[in-house]
């Protein structure tokens, strides 16, 4: 029987040298040290041996088992190592092949800019107040200190509807009156809102002008709102939307619904104020019209202008989007060419 042990040992240790795959290794293991393998076969023969030989035989079979298990472990490690080396060496792919297209969607650039605006203004305590696209003449003009035949009415080419007192809002400003009346509790509550929305003007559609465009207007009403607050608030916005060092310039201007009124320019971020085509070589980009809410507008919103004051500002998200992305043609926005929309 001891010969058998030797034979198995020799055969096992010799044949394992030819084992080069994990499949062959599994086969080798079951042949020699598996449940039905040769070593177990030897254990099964112990009962047939004379009593006095059993212990010694058992010890030798045990030794054989550990020897073969050790050989197995070594071989397994070796095979794994080789497989790893092979995988690392031969498994290269052509990384220049095109990617598999993954489904990808995206938000309209105008929506993206609106969200950016809304987030910044929300941080400063301004809530979003939405108002109507189709408005009464009174709200769009008269209550905003633009009575009939006011010269500033000519600045805005209006779409009128079959009802002569109803029009498509030319700006989001009518929402100011609605917000004051709805949220102001009869002129007794402060307000901080922004009014985003689509506006409409009867214009020739060109690369520079559209018949519909979005606006974001802001309104703050309080007992102690100052012009310096307007400046500080707008400067904060400019810093957040452009860069923390953005220089801001304020120009006196005219809007019927604010007084004093001012235009806000930010240093051109495309040329750092050196002058380029986009800023028409002035180094400045116009970003907002603003001012202190006109006393007449405060009154029309239900507030006593002797006690309450406020500021308002308006911005054009499309224009700012155009500046940020070098978009030359405003018609891209509602043209909905997916080749454009997929670039955001």
């Amino acid at each position, binding site marked *: 029987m001891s010969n058998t042990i030797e034979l198995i040992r020799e055969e096992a240790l010799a044949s394992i040298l030819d084992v080069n795959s994990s499949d062959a290794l599994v086969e080798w293991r079951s042949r020699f040290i598996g449940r039905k393998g040769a070593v177990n076969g030897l254990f099964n023969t112990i009962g047939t041996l004379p009593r006095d030989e059993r212990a010694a035989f058992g010890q030798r079979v045990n030794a054989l088992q550990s020897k073969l298990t050790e050989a197995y472990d070594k071989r397994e490690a070796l095979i794994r190592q080789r497989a790893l080396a092979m995988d690392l060496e031969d498994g290269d792919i052509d990384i220049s092949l095109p990617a*598999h*297209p993954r*489904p990808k*969607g*995206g*938000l309209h650039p105008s*929506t993206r800019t609106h969200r950016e605006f809304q987030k910044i203004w929300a941080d400063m*305590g301004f*809530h*979003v107040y*939405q108002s109507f*696209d*189709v408005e*009464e003449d009174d709200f769009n003009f008269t209550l905003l200190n633009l009575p009939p035949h006011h*010269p500033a009415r000519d*600045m805005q080419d209006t779409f*009128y*509807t*079959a*009802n002569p*007192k*109803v029009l*498509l809002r030319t700006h989001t400003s009518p929402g100011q009156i609605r917000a004051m009346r709805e949220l102001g509790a009869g002129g007794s509550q*402060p*307000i901080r809102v922004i009014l985003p929305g689509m506006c409409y003007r*009867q214009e*020739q*559609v060109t690369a520079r002008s559209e018949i*519909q465009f979005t606006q974001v207007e802001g309104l*703050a009403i309080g*007992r102690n709102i100052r*012009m*310096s*607050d307007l*400046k*500080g*608030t707008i400067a904060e916005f400019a810093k957040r939307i452009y860069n923390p060092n953005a220089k801001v310039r*304020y*120009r*006196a*201007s*005219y809007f019927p619904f604010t*007084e*004093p009124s*001012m235009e806000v320019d930010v240093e051109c971020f495309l040329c750092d104020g050196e*002058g380029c085509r986009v800023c028409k*070589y*002035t180094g400045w980009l116009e970003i907002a019209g603003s001012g*202190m809410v*006109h*006393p*007449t507008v405060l009154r029309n919103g239900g507030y006593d*202008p002797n006690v309450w*004051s406020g500021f308002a500002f308006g911005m054009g998200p499309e224009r700012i989007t155009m500046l940020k992305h070098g978009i030359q043609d405003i018609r891209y926005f*509602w*043209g*909905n*060419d*997916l080749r454009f929309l*997929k670039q955001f």
Partner: protein
Amino acid sequence: MRVPISWIKDFVDIDIPVELLAERLTVAGLEVAQVQYIGLPQTDVPGVRMPRADHLVWDREKLLLGRIVEVKAHPNADRLVLALVDYGGEALEQCVTGATNLFGYKDQGEITPPIWGAFAMEGAVVWDGHSEKARHMTLKGKELRGIYNRSMVCSEKELGISDEHEGVIILDHDDRYAAGTPLADILGDVVLDIEFTPNLARCFSMIGVAREIAAILGCEMRYPSFEFVAEGETIAGQVCIEIREPALNPRFTLTLLRDTEVKPSPFWLRHRLKLIGQRPRNNIVDVTNYITFEVGQPLHAFDYDKLADRAGGTPTIITRLPEPGEKLETLDDVERDLGAETILVADTAGALAVGGVIGGGETEISDSTRNVLLEGAAWNNINIRKTIKDQRVYTEASARFSRGVHPSQAILGSTRGIELMRQLGGGIVARGVVDAYPNPPETVRIELPITRVTRLLGMEVTIERAADVLRRLEFEVDIRGDVIVATAPDHRLDISADSVVGQADLLEEIARVIGYDQIPDTIMADEMPPQWENTDLYIEERIRDALAGMGLFEVINYRFTNRDTEAMLVPDGVASSLPDADYVEIVNPSASDRNVLRHTLMTNMLETAGNNASYQETQQVFEVGKVYLQGAETLPDEPLHVGILLTGRRHTSSWQDADESQVALDFFDMKGIVENLLHDLHIGEFDYSKGGHCGLHPGRSADILLRGKCIGSFGEVHPQVAERFKLTNDKVIYAELEVAPLVRHHRRLHAIEPLPTSPAILEDIALIVDGTVAANEVEAVIRQAGGRLLKSARLFDVYTGDPIPPGKKSLAYALTYQDPERTLTDKNAAKIRKKIIGATRHRLGAELRS
């Protein structure tokens, strides 16, 4: 308005670079849109950004004032002459020139009195006068028809002043300048193009701008003289005025100049008019234009003799509204039907002019006019606006009167105008002015506590400083304690008599002149208003995020469409399911196909799909936008809708699985999107019914029911509709949902299911049922029979064909059994399975497919 600095300097000394001046004006509200340099260099001012000017800077050594001493014939050429020019050098210089306006002096000997030209020496750079394109050229010596020439007398074009190149510049004699003076010192100029907002009507003139500059720079304003030399008979009795509508014509003044000569204006006047873009005509008309721009008071000159003829004696000027059907032929040769509100200047014989807008042809100044009656009047600006709109006529006069000219200016314009006419054309001015002033505006006096200034600006302003600013703007100011009492100057109509509004008007002036840059930047210290949440907006944005996250691109369409296009959504013989509301109709649409606001997003979405079709193998897009439903109320409902459109391939093709990419997007892709969207909003209780949207295929569409109410539909676009929108290549799948019900039913709080701790048993079963049995019925029976322990039943295959008998189909389900509390055994699973098979057989006639 074009504003030459040389003209402004008549009224105010400017001691800062013009670039800085432009910046100061711009920030003070007079926006300088453009700066044009004439001969002078651009200055670099630190901190001021200006577009780089591309202009000719006149060489101070080589472009000089020259006296043209004599003009001789050219020996070899009829169309050229030789001009002998004293340019301050040691000898006269001979220039060969073709200037037609020198031919008259040919061979006349020394010219007296002397005439003056713009002389260019050899080496000077000028514009090429003969070139169509703007091009510089350097003057070089060469022979011109046998005579050597190295210098020239220049035309306006050659100096870059205007396009005129017929003749050369002949300047007026001016004692201040000797031959050899650099031209830059005489004609060099900078012209600012200033844009005025409607509140700056008072600035719409050289004096108006100069006054602002004086206030901004804090320097002295020099007004021109408004005195006039009047040595004739008194005007009284030579003309009368009758104002019938004082509200529309608050003031009317007349002056009279007799025995004058109508002729071309001198160089300086023609030059100034050209600088501001006006065409010189004759000395009388030029003065009316000049005063319009200098004082801001438009004038109108009548031929007095023609008026006297019409009247058959002493003329009476009548301002009135038209008679019914009255017409007038105006200076621009247009016969005008006069609207009922058009104010007229007339006489006893009929209409003469449209007041404040345009004169009539019959009584205008002609070359033979001897006696000039000059009108300086004031008009109601709103009425003039109506006339402009009504008559579609825009003149320099109407531009000013429509913005508002204070009636006090009428007399200033008249007196300065008549004196200038006298100086230029000679003659004798009648003594006095006929001045009818029935309706002077009220004087506006505002009390402004300095505390209000400080509070509203957020900046400490001393009362003296505020008062000083207002005085610089010519307000009359009293300080009473801490209150400024300011009386508006008589050139301003923009200061309100309402005390709070008037205070705001003054506040703006104070802030503007001090400079907005002086106001600090502060953070609002005011009470924070109550905060609230905008749920509508939150859901709107959630919808956008959910759809974009599913691989869809957001589009934003025009909200305009037209009735016919929306009617295309209704196939022949099908009843419309579109909203039963009126349209918001645009009476002045930008295009006839955009004359109503949409009732549905569908037409715009289909059009967008059509536009993209040729570039895209797949389109998966959505829009969240309003539709407009006009009801009985004044304003329409503006409900928010979400529209989703799918067309083309389900996958974009890849080099690895090109076959799979051929599968077209279909109804079930849309169903997946709709369900994901509703799931994203945690809306669980929805259901489907057979589609009822007229624009969708009746057999391949569904309505979405939320608590039994239809909130939208989706499905294949009806083939006839698709064809009408020229979308025939690929199937188009469309969905449109109302957003309001999603807002109403979305769940902000929802509990999650705990993760199971026991293992699940998975198995597949395939059931053969009649082809007409709907999948959701089968699933309902399976779920009911499976009970609590059937965790999920997912349909993974639908099969018809061999070996399934005709008219039947096989539905294969992946079933998951699980008990959250204990581990299920195979025996438990077999029991559930048996129940399921039994129930489906019993209720649906299903057979187990082996």
